[in-house]
């Protein structure tokens, strides 16, 4: 087992998360499970981005001041080994966006429950006759 195998299976995990999320959004009847589905899709995309930045056998792209002072020449070596950190910045943004979407969705859920006294999508959208 080497690093690139981890990368491959990590992509597979991300794909599974997204597929499970889409399944939940389409087929699950409970609103909260649909919301969890939205969260799972976001997690899957985040995992794809993180795995893209991953470098097998690399190091975490954080350089401490102490390390730099010990040997200034370490910068070149660091740049060679560090994982690609642009995707991490994207993921941080997406995590925050996902959290805010989730919060709004949960707020709507409480309001809908107060009105319909149910969490079932079938029950809530009953008035729109199929």
């Amino acid at each position, binding site marked *: 087992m080497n690093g690139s195998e981890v990368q491959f299976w990590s992509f597979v995990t991300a794909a599974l998360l997204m597929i499970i999320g*889409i399944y939940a*959004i*389409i087929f699950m009847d409970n609103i909260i499970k649909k919301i969890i589905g939205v969260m799972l899709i976001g997690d899957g995309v985040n995992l794809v981005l993180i795995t893209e930045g991953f470098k097998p056998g690399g190091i975490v792209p954080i350089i401490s001041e102490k390390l730099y002072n010990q040997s200034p020449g370490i910068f070149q070596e660091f740049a060679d080994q560090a994982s690609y950190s642009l995707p991490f910045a994207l993921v941080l943004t997406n995590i925050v966006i996902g959290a805010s979407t989730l919060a709004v969705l949960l707020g709507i859920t409480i309001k809908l429950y107060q009105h319909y006294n149910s969490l079932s*999508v*079938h029950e*809530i*959208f009953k008035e*729109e*006759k*199929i």
Partner: protein
Amino acid sequence: MDNLYDYLHEKFKALGGTQIGSGLSAEFILLAFFPLVLIALLRGVNDTIAIVLALLFIVAVVFSAPFVVKVSKENTDHYNIAAFYVAIVMGIVMFIMLGGI
């Protein structure tokens, strides 16, 4: 054919509250829409095949009219209908992009 109006009126009742006039205009536009799309799709192929397909299509239209009721049933605000079409279209779009029809 004497009581076509009554027949259509009966059919359009399912729409609920819509006037028969608007139902009929929508129906005619849809009847014009399908052959135009068919022409747009089949313009490239062999003439004979296109004629046969067009005839088959006309037969299908005659037996399945009126469309308005079906179309309006498929475009309500229900969550499940939206989810169904979203899933189908996502699949089709990805298939066209990757399969390259």
